[in-house]
């Protein structure tokens, strides 16, 4: 299936892919570092392994950035 990750279309061959699984594939070091938006709605951190992506979904990762130091 084709999904858009951070605005870029990507082919993903895994089926039944959860957001948690996608984070692993996308090499996000820790789920704690990001807020995930699926088709314009934020995914609750507790639901990342219960929420699945399907063909032509759009996923955005928003990373925590703290430093203004």
């Amino acid at each position, binding site marked *: 299936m084709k999904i858009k990750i951070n605005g870029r279309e990507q082919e993903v061959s895994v089926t039944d892919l959860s957001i948690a699984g996608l984070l692993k594939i996308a090499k996000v070091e820790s789920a704690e*570092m990001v807020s995930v938006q699926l088709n314009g709605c934020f995914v609750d951190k507790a639901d990342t392994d219960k929420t699945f992506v399907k063909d032509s979904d759009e996923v955005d990762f928003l990373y925590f950035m703290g430093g203004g*130091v």
Partner: protein
Amino acid sequence: MNLSEEQIERYSRHIILSEVGVEGQERILAGKALIIGLGGLGSPAALYLAAAGVRTIGLVDGDNVELSNLQRQVIHFSPDVGKPKVISAQEKIKAINPDVKVSTYQERVYADNIRDIIKEYDFIIDGTDNFAAKFLINDACVLAAKPFSHGGILRFDGQAMTYKPGEACYRCVFTAPPPKGAVPTCSQAGILGAVAGMLGTIQAAECLRFLIGKGDLLVNRMLIFDALRMKFREVAFKRNPSCPICGKNPSIKELRDEEEPACDLKKKA
């Protein structure tokens, strides 16, 4: 307000912009902006707001200037090392533009002082370096219905969004601070000085456009850039119905201090 001849000359490059004009410049000259944190983001923001003629600029920071700050905190100069940041910044602002009134708050923001500090300002710039302060500023601004600009930087990356009452807030995107240690800090991971300048300048531009009332602010969207590849993108979002402070059933009804700042390796002021 009638602009003096000197003001017309000083602000002529603003006034000539059709979106600003005399009216827009007068709004800037009547504006009150608060900058929380006079580090990598707050320094350039303060310089541009001062140059633009913002009437009152509030400066909040409890730290003194350190040598390692000077690589990016462009409002502080070498002879300022050891001086309170608010004093160092006040001196530069006065030198750039004597019209500007500066109020200094040589302290950190906490749940018990932030409400009084933000009260009299039109727009707040978050230039802080830790998540405890970032979430506190968000919560205080949401509860007091004050617009503010969020800025975050790390290594070569930056992000900015603006909150306006009634629109998505920082907690709509990031519900709660990350667990300690999950997100590297600038002092651990580093930051390209110019990236701080880019982002602090974006925050100043948000403030000025808010005061003028023109253009589209970074409301309900986050601008994200990667300055190593020099690519910008933006992510649009809506208010989050389950947001703990502005959602349908908010769990946060009063201000509280979050746990130990995640980005704080320095002693507390």
